[in-house]
């Protein structure tokens, strides 16, 4: 069997390679997405006081530290056995929404728009943010502005844009000042308008990508996420819901601390990224997807007016259950719009300036679980402590990890459709990358270097001789 190896695929937020295994007819028989980096957070936090965990866990990621802060703080709240003040929950949610906006803006404008606006087969030297800036400078500026808004919300609330520490066990460490509330509210209309314009642009070009939509991770699967008590979209709190490919809810209202009844984790020798799966169906049949595509499938509605209008149009156009991973891009923008609207609603709540924003306690339970919806999907932090409150065990199910099986399946699908084993082309390479990028994994930062992602592909015959070889970067 011939093997085509794409390595390295990534840098910084994760390192990975892709192997395409060809049969004797030159067709892709199997494809694997190998994550080649170990972070080790679950291990090196052992022995730390539980109250340090949010600050430590925020360092897992430079793009979505707030999601880790939220999930970690909620796990600590459970360890403390406290119910945090309502205002504190709302403030945490506002910070989290700021992150959703900046992360989704980053994903769309900086990582994905080059493919969508310049074309999958365009010159790789220009198929990047520099090319977008040259071809669509106003759009590039709007992308920067939208991300800046999200980052500024985080900075105004938490005093740091990256690895903020405002969210703490028991709540937040200071109330919201009226001037900060007013500052954020004044910026919301511009952010909303940018998002609506971008949605309009994306909707207008989707028909150009019919082939990609057909073959980019377009397969029936389960979908998983948290919803609020009414089954609506909620990034901060809720219970787990699982939907099948036909749109039936097969499990609902699962409390976060029961996640292990629903989610199992497998490991494969060829990747450091775990393979979560829906436990009742076993591995690997229990493949499920999380993140924007999944969330907009499992919820009844977003719960904010403009986003719900877009939500309705999205499902009318692509079905009650949207299957193609290509439409992560579309779902992501709807979520960005919802985040802006939801932020405005929360900021206008009468108790948002309350000074009561923190509950205080020591560890009162041996175990705590916190779940949140990160930009990339469901995020779970599970801690166990000893009598002194020191961490003795931690399990993290990272959003991107939930999609690992699906990403592998998507690579198989896209490579089987596009890869000609006898004749490698750059456009094929880009589509393999692009399907991963649709999931917006933390790896995607490193799968989209400016110009060209360094890549070497070899087509090796059964006798070990190199039949074809292509370099890029």
């Amino acid at each position: 069997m011939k093997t085509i190896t794409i390595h390295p695929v990534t840098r910084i937020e994760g390192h990975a390679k892709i192997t395409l295994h060809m049969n004797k007819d030159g067709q892709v028989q199997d494809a694997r997405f190998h994550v080649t980096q170990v972070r080790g957070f679950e291990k090196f936090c052992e022995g730390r006081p539980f109250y340090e965990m949010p600050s430590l866990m925020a360092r897992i990621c430079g793009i979505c530290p707030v999601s880790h802060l939220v999930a970690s703080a909620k796990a600590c709240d459970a360890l403390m056995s406290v119910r945090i003040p309502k205002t504190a929950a709302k403030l945490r949610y506002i910070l989290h929404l700021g992150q959703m906006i900046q992360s989704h803006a980053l994903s769309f404008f900086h990582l994905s728009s080059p493919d969508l606006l310049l074309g999958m087969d365009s010159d790789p030297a220009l198929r990047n943010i520099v090319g977008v800036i040259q071809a669509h400078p106003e759009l590039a500026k709007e992308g920067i502005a939208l991300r800046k808004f999200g980052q500024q919300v985080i900075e105004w609330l938490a005093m740091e844009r990256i690895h903020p520490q405002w969210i703490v066990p028991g709540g937040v460490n200071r109330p919201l000042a009226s001037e900060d509330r007013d500052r954020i509210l004044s910026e919301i209309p511009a952010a909303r308008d940018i998002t609506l314009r971008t949605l309009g642009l994306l909707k207008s070009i989707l028909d150009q990508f019919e082939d990609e939509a057909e073959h980019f991770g377009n397969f029936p699967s389960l979908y998983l996420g948290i919803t609020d008590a009414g089954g609506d979209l909620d990034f901060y709190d809720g219970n787990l819901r699982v939907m099948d490919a036909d749109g039936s809810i097969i499990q609902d209202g699962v409390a976060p601390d029961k996640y292990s009844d629903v989610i199992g984790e497998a490991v494969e020798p060829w990747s450091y990224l775990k393979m979560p799966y829906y436990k009742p169906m076993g591995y690997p049949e229990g493949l499920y997807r999380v993140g924007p595509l999944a969330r907009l499938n499992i919820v009844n509605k977003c719960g904010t007016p403009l986003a719900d209008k877009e939500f309705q149009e999205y499902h009318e156009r692509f079905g009650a259950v949207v299957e193609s991973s290509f439409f992560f891009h579309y779902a992501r923008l709807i979520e960005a719009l919802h985040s802006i609207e939801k932020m405005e609603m929360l900021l206008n709540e009468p108790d948002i300036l309350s000074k009561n924003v923190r509950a205080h306690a020591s560890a009162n339970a041996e175990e705590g679980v916190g779940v949140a919806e990160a930009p990339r999907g469901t995020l779970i932090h599970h801690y166990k402590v000893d009598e002194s409150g020191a961490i003795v065990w931690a399990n993290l199910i990272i959003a991107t990890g939930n999609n690992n099986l699906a990403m592998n399946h998507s690579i198989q699908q896209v490579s089987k459709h596009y890869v000609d084993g006898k004749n490698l082309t750059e456009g094929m390479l880009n589509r393999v990358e692009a399907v991963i990028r649709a999931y917006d994994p933390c790896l995607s930062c490193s799968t989209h270097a400016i110009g060209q992602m360094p890549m070497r592909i070899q087509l090796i015959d059964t006798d070990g001789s190199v039949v074809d070889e292509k370099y890029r970067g």
Partner: protein
Amino acid sequence: MADVLIIGYGNILRGDDALGWLVADSLRKQDRPGVEVIASHQLTPEMSELVAGVNRVIFVDAREDIPPGQILVERLDPKVSSDASFSHQCDPWGLLQNARVLFGGTPTALLVGVGGEAFELSERMTQQLDQALTKVLKLVDELISDANHPHWHQNGHKGETDNA
């Protein structure tokens, strides 16, 4: 509008990489008129608008490609296109390029690089960079105060200084 923007960046949990952040953190506490200071974990795309809005920019960063303790001041040419990795993380050349293309700003820019020795996980810098901090602060202070400092008018793009 500020005259000078200082951006000191680096990971404060990675040993010597903290230097840029610590320099900026010290400077922003001074709250000098006409000087805006950013202490950041990394350079991000939205900084390009800030860069475009000032006359002079000073980036401060610890670097692996300079001998430990040595300070290297480079004038950054905004006309040079940079092969920047532009996702959530940028480099100074990328920021300058986008400041020019998107926002029409062409500040004079310097990169004050300090050779670091250890970039592994650590809450402390090495002794050498601890000692360099004062010297770097003095240098940046001179660069802020004197728009005619020779470094601002370097013809080639590198000007070495003394070891820290």
